[in-house]
């Protein structure tokens, strides 16, 4: 499915640059050693104030399907022709609290195996060529 191309900014550029190298990285606060995603300018934990002691950690690219919905009336123009389609929530193996969305390419619509193992793949978006992390059910 052709997706919108994300435009990296100062905060999340390392995430998107890594995706272009087929690597999945997640932001980590070095003060509280907690992963956070989506990336933010500073750790939201007040105890880490000012919260700018951040790094990027490479992930295994493995996870599980947490849950899903099926999109029938999508507001995004570029995706409208592909309806209906799955939008699953994937939780990462390293920290199930970190979640990402996925269209689960290869999985039939509304036949999403909740709890199933998934692995990351990287899709090229048509407008700028920026890659985005996607997930496929494995096993």
């Amino acid at each position: 499915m052709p997706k919108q191309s994300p435009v990296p900014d100062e905060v999340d550029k390392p995430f998107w640059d890594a995706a272009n190298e087929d690597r999945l990285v997640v932001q980590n606060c070095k003060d509280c050693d907690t992963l956070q995603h989506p990336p933010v300018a500073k750790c939201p934990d007040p105890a880490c104030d000012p919260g700018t002691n951040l790094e990027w950690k490479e992930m295994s690219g493995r996870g599980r399907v947490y849950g899903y919905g099926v999109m029938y009336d999508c507001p995004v123009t570029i995706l409208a022709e592909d309806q209906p389609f799955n939008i699953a929530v994937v939780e990462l193996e390293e920290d199930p609290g970190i979640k990402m969305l996925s269209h689960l390419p290869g999985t039939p619509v509304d036949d999403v195996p909740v709890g199933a193992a998934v692995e990351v793949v990287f899709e090229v978006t048509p407008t700028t060529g920026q890659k985005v992390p996607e997930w496929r059910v494995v096993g």
Partner: protein
Amino acid sequence: MPTQNAPASMYRSTEGLGIWEHKGKVAAVGIGHSPTARRWDETTDTSLGAWSILALRKAIEDAGVRPEEVDGLVMAQETSTGSPWPSDKPIPEDFLNTYKSTDNPLDGIARLSADWILMNMPELTNVNFTMYGPGCMSNAVVTAAQAVGEGLTEVCLVLKGWHNFGGRYYVGQGAAGGNTVTGPGKYSTLWGTVACYTTAMQFEAYCRKYGKNHDMMAPFVVNEKRNGLMFPEGFWAQHRPEVLTVEDYLAARWIAKPANLFDNDIPIMASAAYLFTTPERAKDMKQKPVYILNVASDRTRVRSFGPTLEEAEAATDETGRKIYEGSGLSPSDLSFENMYDGFTLFHQFHLEGIRFAGVQRGEALDFYATDITIEGPNPASPSGGNAGAGRTRFWMHTDSIQQIQGRAGDRQIRKPAEIGVSGGPTPTGGNFTVWSATPG
């Protein structure tokens, strides 16, 4: 000094604060509503600004006070239902000639500032306190209650207005319309999420966890629409008095399965205003005072994409505890509940969080199959909420005040309306108010 957002210190967002220090010392008296419309017809007298002024004047009249007695105004600046005013479209000339303008040309059209209201309501000669309760009426209500309790204002107007223009709700607009995406949409819009997606995802997880299904929502949504048709101030009662049947609900098209058309609300234009005051001042006013026994807020920090089911349940459990801690009440004290319903699929998180009628986690959909009507022992959402009256997020508050004043008309619950609770919007970020016929 420009009007500021309420500071974090005005919200009771943590547990352990004990009984609200202003319990029973703030009362709602007056109510004012504008008409409703699906979209703005671009005439001056139906504009957001005109209707907000109308609602405020009605609230003043309803309370039976003179405009010069009003000394406070709490409101929300944001008024969008999801349709922006096109950047290349001029503001109608007649509107500009009728109302005084602020520095922002969209004031009174697609946003509302306190300055705009005060410039265009010259009769409010003694307002010396203004504050924004951002977002929704739920926020403005708790902000105003706290302000009256703290003595910042004695006769305070509370306002929320909504505009709605052409185009479908967010469809193809803003971040959804481009081939590139910036900002937070990189982690949501990019995948095609619609507003109800997260709630649909939570509800799917809820059904798996507790062995329920979407069909079990039908009695609740049908009851919401029924209650809404008995709300003369609401959109459906005014414009489309259509009865919703269980069959209609079950046959409705999906938006984001398992959320269907009727699990979503219809964006409309409308404004509502209340008049809050102290019990002492309320004695001389026209309507029966409805005392506020507690205000509570939720400021859950969602960990990642979400909120998830677990986060929604934890947040609403905490909200329930805060509501009862600050009011000194228990679930059995509630005559009715008016927790938020837009989207319908998260109402059960709120309802279970406050343990309404003793309903525990995972039991709400079974509870919906019992008598939840206004005639029954456990009136659930007697306002009809957003589902029953249109997307404003304020019907629940109006109804709570009207129920306790005995002014809910055909919607009046048959059991005595002594204490109720209202608030929202989302399970993980809202503001909640406990209303009572007595100061406690």
